[in-house]
């Protein structure tokens, strides 16, 4: 159960009837979904709709010698076959996935489909549009492409070797980006430290595996020149900009609608060439064209993430004080840096967040990001954090073991104290409003830590090998305009917005730029609006995910919806309330200050007597304007935007605990229980916040234990099915206990931070520490994720 701490105090103006903040309301969308009435992109059918399929590269690196489409064009139902070269002529130019905030970063120009050379297995090469998907696939099979295979660079560790060819000759080599942080004097700290612990790490390539694959349904109206695209996206306005810019349709003539989105996790904040191709086909044909990726297409064309090797060390004093970190990571970007968010943020975030909970003064970190003949990697839930936290927290445990300190104790000695904020981490991050100490206290209590340690010891006597893992973390949320996307030049809104309106019958329409993927955005925004305005939830409808209907916003990414979008809703609702009270004051001949809104009616602030309903205000404000003073022009519609003024991010913090049992004969890890205590600031809906943490945790546990895009030397994906790429299922996952410590963010009035990635960001660190705790009696340890049975048996010397 959730533990909403008693300091979830409401602002005085929120602590009143219709205060839905802090209440676990159910989601309206859930009722549709359980009845099978969800409406996802593939559920939408338009008149004269056609279907797209793709010919994709079977080679990791190859030159296209020739393409023969003659037979395919004769197949039944075929409406269009388009090569990459033909599509290149229909777009305004190639993308280059670099941002100016990454000085010296390189990437090659990339067209939506390969033009004369393919750079990864699965890269789209030709588009086929036909009356049915089956016919499009039939025709695609009859296209003959002659290939000349080129040397493939699959192994990131060899990407920069002198003998390795540059994937993109014009770049000179395969280096995408290198970043170094060197704060304090790490060299001296290591030289004079009592102890140094160090290790090397391997993190496998993952992908998001949203259950609903990517998809678009594009409908271009040749009569009006308007392009409408239904797409499973987290960021409709970003997609609007990119389609407009790439396809030459003015952005005000592009409507992007995100219907129900069947899972996203960062996968659906990106641009994809196959989607552009399908939209281009609709523009060319003047007919609706649908493209839904199938599962193998998803595995080879969705963004990938995480592939990183690392070497890291940490200096400590004999009293257990962390003095310095020194980390060196190598991250595999894939064939191109993903446009427009790039493929280097995973690597650079690792540098920022490793050791982020601790007060050490010296921090040296280097990230090297290289190109390989694999799908582009990019932002996926908790970018960089699972890796940075695993590295940092593993080293902390090594230090604890070396010094004979308990895992909790060493963390208590090193975290930033709760009264130390604002502060700056050794990596240079500004942190505020955090609560590491209180989080540790709550975790220790919730886990029954001391008793768990006793149980572990008793069972070890009986040959049962259990491990307890702890991981503190910080998590970047709600990026601001001074960071990567804003100053970096990406066409992605860092602000978000709300337009809130009073309708003639007293109903409230609340249109928001942040989007819904099932996490409960619409419900939460409704709770904020209803609370700020003083109306029942049943009076409010929240609209999201349609660029024709909502104010310009960034959508949902980086745990920003409540912190940024929620604040905009709060401000806009208060503006509307102000206008309603002003109109009511005029009508009632009262000062607006003595009035309030409760349960959809204007009341006397003192005494609470109902004076006039919002329906009456709506009726007068829209229809009976003669009842208002001459010259008054009520809008009954208010828009507010919000973005961070100074900070790069709002950082949140927390701690995970994992309890596992290892079968030392088979190498299987059984997850017995998992705990998370985190501080996301103001909690609007406790149940939804908890479920974000739980779902995120399991996504992290999947990566730590099972998930891996396995590539061979030739750059072929060898496990591109859901039978081979293992995802966590119900039977393997533990119950997850979630608790919150609430420290309101000081950068907004609402005080919310972010919660969507706090599970994913540190679960891998906690579970790896638990596994190593269990293995410690054998003198064995693992630093490779996923921690497959083979990895564990290898560590035990059994294979």
């Amino acid at each position, binding site marked *: 159960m959730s533990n909403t701490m008693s300091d979830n105090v409401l602002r005085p103006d929120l602590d009143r009837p219709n205060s839905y903040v802090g209440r676990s309301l*159910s989601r309206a969308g859930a009722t549709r*979904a359980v009845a099978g009435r*969800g409406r*996802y992109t593939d559920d939408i059918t338009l008149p004269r709709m056609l279907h797209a399929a793709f010919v994709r590269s079977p080679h990791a690196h190859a030159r296209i010698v020739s393409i023969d489409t003659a037979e395919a064009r004769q197949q039944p139902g075929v409406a269009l076959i388009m090569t990459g070269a033909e599509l290149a002529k229909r777009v305004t130019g190639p993308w280059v996935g670099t941002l100016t905030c990454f000085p010296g970063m390189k990437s090659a120009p990339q067209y939506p489909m390969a033009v004369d050379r393919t750079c990864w297995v699965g890269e789209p090469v030709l588009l086929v549009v036909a009356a049915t998907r089956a016919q499009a696939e039939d025709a695609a099979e009859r296209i003959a492409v002659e290939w000349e295979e080129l040397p493939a660079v699959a192994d990131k560790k060899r990407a920069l070797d002198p003998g390795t060819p540059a994937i993109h000759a014009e770049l000179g080599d395969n280096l995408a980006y290198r970043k170094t942080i060197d704060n304090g004097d790490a060299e001296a700290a290591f030289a004079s430290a009592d102890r140094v612990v160090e290790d090397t790490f391997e993190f496998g390539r993952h992908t998001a595996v*949203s*259950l609903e694959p990517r998809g678009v349904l594009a409908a271009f109206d040749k009569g009006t020149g308007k392009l409408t695209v239904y797409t499973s996206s987290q960021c409709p306005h970003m997609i609007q900009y990119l389609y407009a810019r790439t396809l030459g349709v003015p952005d005000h003539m592009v409507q992007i609608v995100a219907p*129900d989105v069947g899972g996203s996790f960062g996968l659906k904040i990106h641009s994809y060439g196959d989607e552009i191709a399908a939209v281009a086909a609709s523009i060319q044909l003047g007919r609706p064209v649908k493209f839904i990726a199938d599962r193998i297409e998803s595995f080879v064309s969705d963004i990938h993430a995480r592939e990183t090797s690392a070497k890291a060390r940490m200096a400590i004093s004999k009293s257990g004080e962390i003095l310095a970190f020194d980390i060196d990571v190598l991250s595999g970007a894939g064939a191109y840096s993903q446009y427009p968010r790039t493929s280097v943020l995973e690597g650079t975030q690792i540098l920022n967040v490793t050791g982020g909970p601790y007060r050490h003064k010296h921090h040296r970190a280097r990230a090297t990001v290289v190109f390989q003949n694999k799908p582009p990697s990019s932002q996926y839930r908790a970018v960089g954090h699972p890796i940075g936290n695993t590295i940092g927290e593993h080293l902390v445990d090594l230090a604890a073991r070396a010094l004979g300190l308990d895992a909790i104790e060493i963390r208590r000695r090193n975290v930033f104290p709760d009264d130390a904020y604002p502060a700056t981490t050794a990596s240079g991050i500004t942190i505020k409003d955090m609560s590491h100490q209180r989080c540790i206290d709550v975790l220790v209590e919730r886990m029954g830590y001391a008793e768990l340690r006793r149980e572990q010891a008793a069972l070890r006597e009986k040959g049962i090998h259990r491990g307890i893992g702890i991981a503190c973390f910080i998590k970047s949320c709600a990026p601001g305009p001074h960071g990567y996307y804003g100053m970096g030049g990406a066409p992605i809104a860092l602000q978000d917005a709300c337009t809130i309106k009073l309708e003639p019958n007293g109903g409230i329409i609340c249109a928001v730029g942040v989007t819904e993927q099932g996490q409960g955005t619409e419900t939460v925004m409704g709770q904020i609006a209803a609370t700020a305005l003083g109306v029942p939830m049943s009076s409010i409808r929240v609209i999201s995910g349609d660029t024709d209907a909502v104010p310009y916003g960034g959508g949902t990414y980086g745990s920003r919806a409540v912190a940024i979008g929620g604040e905009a809703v709060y401000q806009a609702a208060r503006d509307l309330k102000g206008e309603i009270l002003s109109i009511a004051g005029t009508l009632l001949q009262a000062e607006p200050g003595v009035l309030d809104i409760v349960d959809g009616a204007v009341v006397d602030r003192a005494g609470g007597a109902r004076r006039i309903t919002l329906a009456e205000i709506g009726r007068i404000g829209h229809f009976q304007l003669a009842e208002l003073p001459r010259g008054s022009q009520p809008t009954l519609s208010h828009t507010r935007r919000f973005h961070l003024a100074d900070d790069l991010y709002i950082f949140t913090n927390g701690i995970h605990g994992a309890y596992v049992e290892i079968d030392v004969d088979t190498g299987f890890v059984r997850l017995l229980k998992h705990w998370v205590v985190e501080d996301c600031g103001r909690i609007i809906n406790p149940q939804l916040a908890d479920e974000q943490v739980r779902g995120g945790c399991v996504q992290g546990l999947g990566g730590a234990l099972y998930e891996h895009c396995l590539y061979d030397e030739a750059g072929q994906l060898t496990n591109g099915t859901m039978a081979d790429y293992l995802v*966590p*299922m*119900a039977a393997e996952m533990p119950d997850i206990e979630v608790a919150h410590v609430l420290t309101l963010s000081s950068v907004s009035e609402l005080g919310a931070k972010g919660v969507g990635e706090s599970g994913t960001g540190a679960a891998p660190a906690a579970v790896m520490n638990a596994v190593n705790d269990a293995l410690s009696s054998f003198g064995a340890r693992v630093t490779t994720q996923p921690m497959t049975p083979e990895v564990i048996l290898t560590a035990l010397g059994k294979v």
Partner: protein
Amino acid sequence: MSDEEHLPISLTVNGERVTRMVPVRQHLVDFLRTDLGLTGSHLGCEHGVCGACSVRVDGAVVRGCLMLAVQADGTEVVTIEGLAESGEIADLQEGFVARNALQCGFCTPGMLMTAAELLAAGAPATREEIRTHLSGNYCRCTGFHAIVDAVETTLAARLKKS
């Protein structure tokens, strides 16, 4: 389209008699979704792993992506829409909504279909047994904990009632 071999099928879907000509290679779930507009059954993997397309055929839960439409000739098919209309799982649906045992909702119809089977068996089940029963249905959003809670609560209420 004209070159594809078609066969006639006659079956009952959610209690309604349906007769159609279908391509012989068409999967049952594609038939339900595209020909009948029953879009509650979803395609997640199209190779029988994820469980999103689960439907009931002659009383048994099957993968709609592993069965051809022509194989459903003469059968009785129930989809999530039919299950919802009949009221058979109204308690489970309420339980899912109240416990937020779904987020994006894409796995939910299949998950409900599978959970309904467990509930219909009428036997007590531990959390671990519930987890095992649901282990053929992939959910990327919830982490499963809330789903297990919802099924457990619904099962307990039903057992208490009976």
